[in-house]
């Protein structure tokens, strides 16, 4: 699909345009009671409306792309490229190249959706709104960039770009020990990306190009660094981002202290960058190493699933609990990847999408509850479903989706991963099955303690969901989760298209290896 | 170069140079140290003569003995007696000794071990003219730059040494800061607080 028009560039940089607009137009700095803030007669607050408009515009563009996406053609579509840096003499060439394929298209769409959600869920932010919404949009640009870059250096650029808004968003608008968490997030990510950069450069040097489409794994074998080392270097960054045990401890801190919108984006799309990277870069560019590393990946994945879930069970902070559950859920991605088959990889990709929606929704719900109760301690809450039944519905729904209930999105991904990975990773899958039970345990336990149980009159005054933005988010996300649960083909086909070439190259390599001795 | 006179000259001048330098090392009085420096430099000048570098020897005597030493003496005289102490710092002497011994080993090794390819038995004559010609012809640019360098040093030294009105204000404020107790506080190991620098009168 070639629209003859740089639609991807437009998509990616539209949020930056929004940043400019926000910077130019005045912001409202009069804090009002958030309960009556949207009563008629209040002044229009430009930044949030601009942010919403821009986020919606990106959503529409990505939706159009999603629809126009040619489901019969493999490879990258909407490609938009030119030579950015060409230093021929020294072989340092960077392309400005964007494109989407079946793998990235759903993630782009997911990013656009969750950006809208993030803006809406921030509707009641009153502290330095101009900056806040500007940074949110910068974050959107960087994530979109990561998902669409076709050049390693561009990928790295956007990967790093996301740090700045995240650092500021967490440490200015966060809560609790926010400075610590923000710095921890940044340092972990920088640590990973340091290794990633070296890996990228080694790849680029060996292949003489940074273009993802042109790097061949045979070239990697000629690198100074042995290919497994390159793989491991890049894997460090993705493992931290995903995150997997034992480099996961930044995640609970960052989530707990981040503002709701950032938690949503962090869980919803930023973690997905790790999984996307594994599929798009590691397995596409180094299928041979990936095929050798399958057992290691499976083990790491299973450890993340089970250990993450067990640790989750002991969490007493609702946001922390969900954060830890992400560790467990993202372990499924590794497990799916380790299957080395279309089914497993599709499942892993599907897990990226569905977890984005589900955990995004969970964080939205926890955020809305926190807005009201100002506590996240599970022990402080009881019987909230009496006072805020609508939020209760949302929370229970999201929780059930999180534990992998059929007809909701999470089930599809998990079952596909299990079915895909069982044959090659029998033991790993067998152990990972307990994760399903543990997920049910921690989610139901949390629901029981917070929303169910005897009424607590402390919370009698709590307003339920009462603003159009909240209704929109809850209903929208519920609809999407159900849609993906009952009709997963709508994205599964795309993902399958996206992972097929990867699996083909893996199979070629494996059979060549087997044939060669 | 094997005659006795030459030997005598070399060894006595060497002893003078090294001895003078050593005396600087042990001397506790700065003025004495400068005097020993003069002695040492005269020894070096003498050594230049043994190397048939008469022009350089003359320059050495003129500039080092005549100018630099005097300059130093002046500077020392400007400070009170208490500041004319030339003792070594015990804290650094140890590490410094280690470093210097290492340097000595290295330089000796290199001096002795290397084939320097020395060829000429006859000394150069007419040195002043040759040096002058070389300066004008081959090294004209360094020569010019050297002139600028001296100008810069001169101007800078004057600018630093002369006491202007605004400098007085700076000193006053600086002293005031000291009186205000803004002197370095040993407890504050992190960073010495740097107090606000005073506004000069020129700001208006």
């Amino acid at each position, binding site marked *: 699909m070639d629209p003859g028009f740089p639609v991807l560039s437009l998509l990616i940089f539209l949020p930056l345009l929004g940043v400019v607009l926000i910077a130019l137009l005045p912001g409202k700095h009069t804090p009002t009671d958030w309960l009556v803030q949207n009563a008629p007669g209040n002044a229009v607050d430009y930044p949030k409306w601009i942010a919403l408009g821009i986020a919606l515009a990106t959503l529409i563009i990505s939706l159009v792309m999603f629809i126009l996406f040619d489901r019969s053609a493999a490879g990258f579509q909407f490609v938009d490229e030119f030579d950015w840096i060409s230093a021929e003499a020294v072989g340092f060439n960077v392309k400005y190249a964007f494109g989407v394929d079946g793998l990235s298209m759903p993630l782009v769409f997911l990013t656009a959706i969750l950006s809208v959600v993030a803006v809406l869920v921030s509707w009641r932010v009153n502290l330095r709104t101009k900056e806040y919404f500007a940074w949110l949009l910068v974050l959107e640009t960087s994530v979109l960039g990561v998902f669409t870059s076709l050049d390693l250096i561009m990928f790295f650029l956007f990967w790093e770009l996301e740090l700045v808004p995240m650092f500021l968003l967490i440490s200015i608008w966060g809560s609790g020990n926010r400075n610590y968490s923000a710095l921890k997030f940044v340092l972990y990510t920088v640590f990973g990306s340091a290794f990633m950069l070296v890996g990228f450069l080694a790849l680029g040097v060996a292949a003489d190009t940074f273009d993802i489409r042109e790097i061949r794994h045979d070239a990697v074998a000629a690198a100074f660094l042995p290919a497994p080392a390159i793989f491991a270097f890049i894997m460090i960054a993705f493992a931290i981002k995903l995150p997997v045990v034992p480099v996961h401890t930044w995640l609970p801190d960052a989530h707990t202290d981040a503002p709701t919108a950032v938690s949503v984006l962090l869980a919803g799309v930023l973690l997905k960058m790790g999984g996307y990277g594994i599929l798009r870069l590691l397995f596409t560019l180094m299928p041979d190493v990936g095929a050798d590393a399958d057992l290691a990946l499976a083990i790491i994945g299973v450890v993340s699933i089970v250990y993450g879930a067990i640790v989750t069970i002991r969490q007493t902070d609702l946001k922390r609990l969900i954060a830890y559950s992400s560790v467990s859920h993202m372990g499924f991605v590794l497990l799916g990847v380790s299957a080395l*088959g279309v089914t497993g990889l599709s499942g892993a990709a599907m897990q990226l999408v569905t977890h984005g929606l589900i955990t995004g929704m969970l964080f939205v719900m926890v955020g809305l509850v926190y807005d009201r109760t100002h506590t996240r301690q599970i022990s402080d809450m009881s019987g909230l479903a009496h006072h805020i039944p609508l939020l209760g519905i949302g929370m229970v729904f999201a929780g059930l989706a999180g534990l992998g209930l059929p007809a909701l999105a999470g089930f599809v991904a998990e079952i596909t991963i299990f079915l895909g990975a069982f044959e090659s990773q029998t033991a790993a899958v067998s152990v990972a099955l307990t994760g399903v039970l543990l997920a049910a345990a921690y989610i139901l336990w949390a629901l*029981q303690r917070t929303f169910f149980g005897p009424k607590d009159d402390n919370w009698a005054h709590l*307003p339920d969901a009462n603003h159009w933005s909240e209704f929109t988010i809850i209903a929208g996300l519920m609809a999407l989760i159900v849609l993906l649960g009952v009709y997963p083909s709508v994205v599964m086909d795309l993902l399958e298209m996206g992972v097929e070439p990867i699996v083909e190259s893996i199979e070629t390599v494996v059979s060549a290896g087997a044939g060669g001795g | 170069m094997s005659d006795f006179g030459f030997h005598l000259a070399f060894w006595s001048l060497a002893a003078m140079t090294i001895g003078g330098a050593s005396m600087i090392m042990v001397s506790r009085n700065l003025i004495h140290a400068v005097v020993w420096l003069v002695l040492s430099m005269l020894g070096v000048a003498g050594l230049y003569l043994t190397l048939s570098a008469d022009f350089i020897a003359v320059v050495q005597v003129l500039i080092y003995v005549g100018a630099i030493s005097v300059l130093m003496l002046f500077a020392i005289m400007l400070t009170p007696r208490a500041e004319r102490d030339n003792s070594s710092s015990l804290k650094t002497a140890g590490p410094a000794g280690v*470093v210097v011994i290492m340097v000595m080993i290295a330089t000796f090794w290199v001096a002795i071990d290397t084939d320097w390819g020395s060829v000429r038995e006859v000394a150069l004559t007419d040195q002043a003219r040759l040096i002058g010609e070389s300066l004008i012809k081959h090294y004209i640019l360094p020569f010019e730059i050297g002139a600028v360098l001296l100008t810069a040093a001169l101007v800078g030294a004057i600018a630093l040494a002369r006491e202007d009105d605004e400098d007085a204000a700076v000193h006053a404020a600086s002293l005031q800061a000291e009186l205000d107790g803004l002197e370095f506080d040993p407890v504050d190991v992190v960073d010495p607080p740097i107090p606000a620098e005073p506004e000069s009168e020129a700001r208006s």
Partner: protein
Amino acid sequence: MSETIFWAILFLPLTAFALAGVSALNQNLQRRIPEWDPRYPSAFKPIADQFCGPRLASTPLIIALAVAFVLALINLIDSIGLRGLPLDIATHQLFTAGDLTVNLGVRIDGLTSVMLVIVTGVSLLVQVYSTGYMDGDHGYRRYFAFMALFTTSMIGLVLADNLLMLFAFWELVGLTSYLLIGFWFHRPAAAAAAKKAFLVTRLGDLGMLAALILIYSKTGTMDIAEINALADHGAEAGMFALNGLMIGQTAMTLFGLGLIAGAIGKSAQFPLHIWLPDAMEGPTPVSALVHSATMVAAGVYLLARFFPVIHASSTASDFIAWIGAGTALGAAILALVQVDIKRVLAYSTISQLAYMMFAIGVGGYVAAVFHLMTHAFFKALLFLGSGSVNHSTNTFDMRKMGGLRTMMPITFATFVVGTLSLAGIIPFSGFWSKDEILIYAWDNNKGVFVLGLLAAGLTAAYMVRAVYMTFFGQYQGGEQVAPGEHGNDDPSHPHESPRSMTTPLIILAVISVVSGFLTFGGEFQTWVYGALPHPHDGSFHWSWGIFLGSTALAVGSGFAAFVFMHHRDRVRSWGVGGIWPIPEAQRFATNLFYLDALGENLLARRVFYGWIARSSAWFDATVVDGVVNHAWREGLTVAGAARFVQNGWVQAGTISIGLGGMIIWIAVVLF
């Protein structure tokens, strides 16, 4: 009959769910929104109330179920015509991922037809009953929404043509069970019971999931018919193969055991039975529908569905036979000491389901399904009866009842019908099905037969005890309604329940009597056999010996129980505590054989939560995170301390120049 009909059966209750959901949402919105948002148009409220009132929750569901029931009946008739052979198999591709193809489809055969009738029929009656029972409850609309969702899931489970779809609906059934048990979520016991039910059944589901994954990876298919054909063929040929793939006996056994694990969880068999008694925290109609007639029967249905698979492995079939027999007896013993009428019925349910389980295990495929059907009717009847009792006494504690036979005659009469049926007294339906199971057990496994027979005797005993405590003797006054709860305001004067409740009781009582006669002529057997890969005509089994033995045992033990209960004061005065002669045994039984304590308190709470999870969390915070934090903190400290090097002396700088240079030289020259 067109496939559309089956989708209609599935989607009718789903639509009702949507409407009930709208109604429930409207209830919450109406209650809340106008308080916060002055812009909310007040004119909207009456309109919304008019169209989205409580009736929107119940009426569409009842209509939907009625229509579905009629459709199911029509289908059953068609099925009879086809002798239970697969009537309609239609499958649609839902999604693919590589080799994996997930389908959504229906498979209609004799088994399905029977199940559809049971599910829609019992559900319809229970819903009608619920309109009376739940009338006035705050969560009325939510209740019907959940019920609608439950019925949908159950229908979907029955209709599924492949294992994955079956599993999906299986899980949804579990979900709705969770929601319904925790319906009164403000009661901590209810919330805890809901969670427990979900988790315990999910533990079993893991086995089923594992089986699903295993069978898919071995055969590449999830289609039920294909799997059954494979198992059936393999059992004869001694070798399993499909699509050119060979499957070992071990894999087949594992597959069977996995399915059995799922069934054990869902049907509350030992050792996963512990959730079912707690599940009685839900509203009584829920217990009637979900925890006796349909959902728990899903486990039996699953094993019946995969009967060839279970019987492809003698390990699996023996396993389930013994588990079932043991559970049947154990649960019956437990039922004997309960004082809560619903708990008696709950343990009875476990026991009866165990009957079906071991029937499957001993090859009594039809018998199991038959018992499933009869049990569904009479157990629903019993539960609804207990609900009716509760409706007027506000309690389920039999010690607070008594003498109700005159005050609630219809309830009494129907309850007694149910009891006789359950106890297996000829000619009530329970007799026919139970007898058939015992015949199969006698033929195949004598040990199981003995256990089953003992359980049958105990069944009569505990039911008679329950009936006696509830309906005979003096009325003990019931219980005052708890503040904030909905119930009978005057429990000291119990009265008969409203028509909406008694009508279903009567209907169910009638069915309980007549449904047993289906066994004559072998028609029923033929339908059900139609679902197997090698359908054959069934026949009516009869054995005088077993008939006489079991009837004598049931009547005898029932009579003994009655006498015992009637003279219990005198019995107590003999110095024997409670019902059981040995106090320790009594305590052992009332503590549910300590299984609950073992499972929940020791394993789940103490070992897992208290020890494993706690130490993992400690490890995570202290070691995994702690190492990083420590490195960071110590790094900062060292960075601060290391600055003494930069101590401000000129010489420090110059020495470092000399030292650095020399170290370079030495290093290069030496190495």
